[in-house]
């Protein structure tokens, strides 16, 4: 063996040609038309037809700026209880900023300016007391952020803080326990944790923690629930669970969800608002926006021309 010669190349035996699956014909297995971004693939639709719909919030000509640049430009949208509103768009389209302005979290940043008007049940939210507003409009964040306390303390947190500071402050009163149990049930977490509510919330899995955050947001009885890409940090099974949860909740709270996942928007949303570079490009029912988009940009985004 000449040490300078490279070792012989071994041929890997191939038995047969690799099998490539054919795209199934549209309309098979009771699904709706072509999914956004993946023509022909199957996907499930969770939402049924919306039931009673009632307007909760109204966004009127809202513009938001951090420093000199306007991040959200002249957006007007209704938010209704009984349906799910999805804000979709590429990164930097301003959808998260718009969401955060709904419970005035944008004010925490120094240098944030706003124009326009947001109404909650007819009242301007900037005239409400800010903590009052945030109890009525709750938010769930992208990364699950349970407090370093027990599961019970997490869920009962907002309610416990709403009680008057004087008077008896026992940790577990019947009212608090009932409210916590109810919230956990609505969030679909009760069966999994009912055995030990005193366990540390940080020991739960990612999907459970996010459901805990949803339960925590629901415990105070909000009128509107804001979800900022709630499933982007989770695995598919947890995602599916939470999506079912969201659709199930829409009759009791108005839901606004920001998502960059078009399939998710299609699955859960009744109305979709597409934003691009701060402007509201198109707003309509999800069937209409996904199947028959009116704007060119919407069509391009949905078909994956940019993302």
């Amino acid at each position, binding site marked *: 063996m000449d040490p300078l010669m490279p070792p012989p190349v071994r041929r890997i035996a191939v038995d047969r040609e690799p099998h490539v699956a054919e795209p199934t014909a549209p309309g098979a297995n009771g699904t709706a038309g072509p999914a956004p971004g993946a023509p022909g693939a199957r996907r499930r639709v969770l939402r049924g037809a919306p039931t009673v719909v009632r307007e909760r919030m109204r966004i009127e000509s809202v513009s938001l700026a951090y420093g000199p640049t306007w991040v959200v430009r002249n957006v007007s949208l209704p938010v209704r209880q009984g349906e799910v509103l999805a804000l979709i768009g590429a990164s930097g389209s301003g959808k998260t900023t718009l969401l955060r302005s709904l419970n005035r*979290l944008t004010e925490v940043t120094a240098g944030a300016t706003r124009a326009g008007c947001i109404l909650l049940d007819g009242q301007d939210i900037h005239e409400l007391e800010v*903590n009052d507003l*945030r109890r009525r409009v709750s938010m769930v964040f992208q990364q699950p952020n349970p*407090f*370093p306390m027990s599961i019970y303390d997490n869920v009962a947190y907002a309610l416990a*803080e709403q009680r008057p500071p004087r008077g008896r402050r026992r940790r577990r009163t019947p009212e608090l326990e009932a409210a916590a149990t109810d919230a956990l049930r609505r969030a679909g977490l009760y069966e999994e944790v009912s055995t030990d509510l005193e366990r*540390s919330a940080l020991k739960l899995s990612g999907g459970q923690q996010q459901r805990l955050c949803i339960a925590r947001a629901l415990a*105070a009885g909000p009128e509107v629930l804001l979800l900022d890409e709630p499933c982007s940090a989770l695995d598919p099974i947890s995602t599916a669970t939470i999506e079912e949860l969201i659709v199930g909740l829409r009759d009791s709270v108005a839901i606004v969800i920001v998502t960059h996942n078009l399939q998710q928007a299609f699955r859960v949303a009744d109305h979709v608002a597409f934003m691009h570079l701060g402007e509201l490009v198109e707003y309509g029912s999800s069937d209409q926006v996904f199947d028959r988009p009116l704007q060119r940009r919407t069509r391009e985004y949905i078909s994956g021309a940019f993302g």
Partner: protein
Amino acid sequence: MLGALGAALLVLIGAMVVTVFIKAWPSFSANGLHWFGAGGNVDTQLRAMQESSPLPGHELSYFRAWPLIWGTVLTTVLAVLLALVVSTLAAVFLTEFAPEPVRRTLEPVIRLLAGVPSVVYGLIGILALAPLINSHLISNSRKSSVAYVVQLNGADLTTATIILAVMITPIMVALIAGALAAVPAPWREGSAALGVNRWRTVVRVSLRTARPAIVAATVLATARALGEAIMLSMVSGGRGFAANPLDGITFLFEPVRPLAATIVQESEGLSIGPLAHTVYALAAVLLVSAALLSIAGWAAKQPLKRYGVRA
């Protein structure tokens, strides 16, 4: 070779601890457990040892340390409690409520306070604060009411506690503010999004998360307070008098004589047998307290690990 250096240091410290206890032993063995008890005037006992003339009815090593121990406990506990409250509030202010220019000023201020030597604090105490308390807070009737037992002149428990608290506040503020600022933003944001105001958020989330740091800060501060000798020897009154809480308000103005201050004050006579043993015995008590303190601090952090509060 470097390892030998470390080992040498280890041997040195070990030798120090052992030597202190060896030199302290004769005082303990002569007095038994009564060493910690009360009995007679500590000052006269120490004087007797220094002049090698035993008090009538007692041997030369007779010593009852209770007034000193009680003085130490009083000053340390009161100062740490005061400093804990002040430091926590100041740390919350620094991290949550202070506007930017105020925060930028407060930081060097804390560093400044931490750097002032204890003798300067003592000077301010004895020349400024004590006369102030003497003339404005202690009335003449109060002085005459206890004149047969002790003189009240402003160098007392209150002055010592206040200045000690000011001395230990900067360390505590630095540690607690650091821990508060390290509370993960998602927790604070989540609490705000639930409609809880900033103060309640701080109390229920941030301070809870910062509890290990608060414990650490308290332990550190207590160790500092225990070991403070010079400042206390200047302002605490120097009389081995066990301040009596039952005296009411007068209690606050009675002089005390903490352990470390006593060691400094008696350091002249360290060549004299019984006095040396007694002083080393005081030092031994200090060492043991410091050790117990560390253990207590470690134990206090344990229960919090359960809830994911990182210690």
